[in-house]
Structures are given as C-alpha cells and as structure tokens.
C-alpha cells in the first residue's frame, strides 16, 4: 500500500538536460554578437548619432513582446477548446515572459525618447497602447493569482488572455491609424543595410532567449502543478 503511494508520487527533481538550454545558449551567443555589432560595428545613425544604437534592443523587445503575447493567445484559445492543462501552463509562461519584455520595451523606449524626441514620456497613441498592453497582461496574471481551483483558473486565464490580446493589433497599427509622435514601422527599405543585419541578429537572439524563458517557465508551472496535485505523502496518509 505504502509502496504504491510512493510510486505514484512525483519523481524527485533530477537535474536533467532539457532541449531549451541549447536554444538559450544559441540566443545568448547571438545576443553577445549582436550587441557587440550594434555598439561597435554598425554605423551611428545620421540624425540620432550614437543614441540610435538602442534600436538594436528596443525594436527586438517590442517584436518579441508581441510574439510572446501571440503565443499566449494561441495556447489560451487551444486550451479553451481542448482543456489540456499543459496549454494553460504555456499561457502563463508566455504572458509572464511577454510582460517582462513589455517592461523592457517601455524602459528602453523612454531612454530612447529623451535624447531624440526631447521627453521621457508623452501620451502618444503608440506609447499609450504599449502601456495599456502591459497593464492588461499584468491584470491577467493578477486574475490568475486570485483563483485557487486549477480548472477554473485555467479557463479564466484563457478567456482573459484572449480579451487582452485585442490590444496587440491595436498597438501594432496605432502608428498607422492615429497621428503619433512615434514613427511608423521601419522596413528594410527605410533602414541602412548594415543596420538591418544587426537588427535581425538581435531579433533572433531575443527570439531564442524568449523560447528558452517560456520553456523554463512552462516546466516550473508543470512542477508546481504536480506538487499541488500530488497524492498525500504516505506518512500523512497513515495518520
């Protein structure tokens, strides 16, 4: 009897090697190379000078925050239709990593804005939408933290994530739909060739690190869920 209980208990944590560490390592190597090139190899920007180099972290942070929230949206919808618990963990992981990138985006944008635009912050449509984006997803995490029942928590998180996701296309198109101080999207045609390459390098670095973080956070959620749902320990069972 007691041996069965032991067998069904979660396996003790072993330091196993997971695939995502390879992705993370690749991301870190690309990040070091990309930031080195961004700081020392790429030319300064004609108007902004050396300050323009923040492009290589600000733009990847913006792109990957949106990618992370898109991952969360997809896993949230998939969870609502399949009910698979693993998809709920993925939503939690992607929302947290996306929120972190969103914070990074706002801080870097502010540092970028002061010397170029002349202000740390202004209620421009793009800036406002990016701030709302962070607040809504922090709201999703707060809602999640307030629900105890795992099934209900998963459903509520998924529904809230789908609703919060409305703001991602709004943020993306804000510079086209409304008059803003923030410039519209750049394209390879509007960015000098050596800068495009360095930007891509850094974007891939951020992408791989994002995948690494989401995968690690997913495993943490899995471990916590298993600990939460584990059968009582034999000693407790006996009493």
């Amino acid at each position: 009897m007691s041996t069965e209980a032991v067998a069904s208990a979660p396996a003790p944590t072993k330091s196993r090697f997971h695939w995502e560490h390879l992705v993370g390592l690749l991301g870190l190597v690309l990040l070091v190379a990309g930031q080195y090139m961004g700081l020392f190899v790429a030319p300064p920007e004609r108007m902004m000078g050396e300050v323009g180099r923040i492009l290589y972290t600000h733009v990847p942070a913006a792109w990957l925050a949106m990618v992370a929230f898109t991952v969360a949206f997809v896993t949230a919808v998939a969870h609502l239709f399949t009910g698979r618990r693993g998809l709920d963990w993925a939503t939690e992981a992607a929302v947290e990593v996306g929120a972190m990138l969103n914070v990074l985006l706002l801080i870097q944008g502010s540092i970028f804005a002061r010397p170029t635009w002349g202000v740390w912050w202004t209620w421009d449509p793009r800036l406002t939408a990016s701030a709302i984006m962070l607040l809504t997803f922090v709201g999703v995490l707060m809602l999640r933290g307030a629900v105890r029942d795992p099934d209900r928590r998963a459903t509520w998180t998924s529904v809230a994530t789908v609703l919060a996701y409305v703001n991602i296309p709004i943020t993306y198109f804000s510079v086209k739909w409304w008059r803003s101080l923030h410039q519209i999207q750049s394209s390879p045609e509007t960015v000098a060739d050596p800068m495009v390459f360095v930007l891509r390098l850094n974007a891939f670095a951020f992408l791989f690190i994002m995948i690494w973080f989401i995968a690690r956070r997913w495993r943490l959620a899995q471990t916590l869920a298993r600990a939460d749902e584990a059968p009582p320990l034999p000693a407790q069972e006996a009493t």
Partner: protein
Amino acid sequence: MTEAMKRRLFGVAALAVAGAALFYVGMSDMGDDLVYYWTPSELIAAAEAKEATVRLGGMVKPGTLDWDRDAQQARFTITDGDHEVPVHCTGNPPQMFREGIGAVVEGKLGTDGVFRTDRVMVKHSNEYEAPDGHPPEVQTTLVDE
C-alpha cells in the same frame, strides 16, 4: 452542459468579443475626434483653440529657425504645406531639432497668432541612415573624432 462544452462556449464568446472590439476600434473614426496633435490648418480653422493648451504638429519650415541657445529662445514656423503657424519657444528644443524636421509643440496659440510653447518634441522618421551614406568604416571614424 458538460465542463468541456462550457469551456468551448467561453472560448467562442471570448473570441467574438475580442473580434468585435478590434473591429470597432479599427473601423470607427475614433482617430478623427481624438488626435495627439493638431495640424496648422486645423488650429487656424478652430477659433476656440485660441488660448487653449493644445499640441501642434508639422514640419519646421526651412529658413525660419532663429535659435538663440544662450538666451534659450527659439522662433520658427510650423507648416503642413497649406497653412503655417509662427512658434515662439522658451527653453532650448532637443538636440535633434533642426529645420525641415517634423516637430510637435505643446502650448497655446495667442490672440496675436503666435503659438507659445516651452515644450518641443522632435518626430523622427522611420528612416535609419548612416551619416552621409559613407561606408560604415569611414563614418565610425569620422563621427568618433
């Protein structure tokens, strides 16, 4: 109704609400009533804008900038191609400020037709260019000096 059905129903409802909200924001003419800045044409056309704090945006007309850095005074003209507004700025505009660049100024249009501001913001275009289009090696050394 089973739990799975209920969850799928939530899924369909959430997607419908999200889609409707996005459609509304994207298709409505919200941007026409709610603007981050006014153009010179709009500002001149709106009599009620006099003495109200607004943002005015446009291009700094080439040949109009008179900037005394020591006295922290700058005078220039903001234009949208059709109309122009003379601007008097107290305090120095940001470093990137120059003629022919996009700018947004916060302040009030006086009854004398001069827009007074103490906050100038520079709008950067979506173009990122190396200085003067020199090959990167050359520019880095040029700019470092």
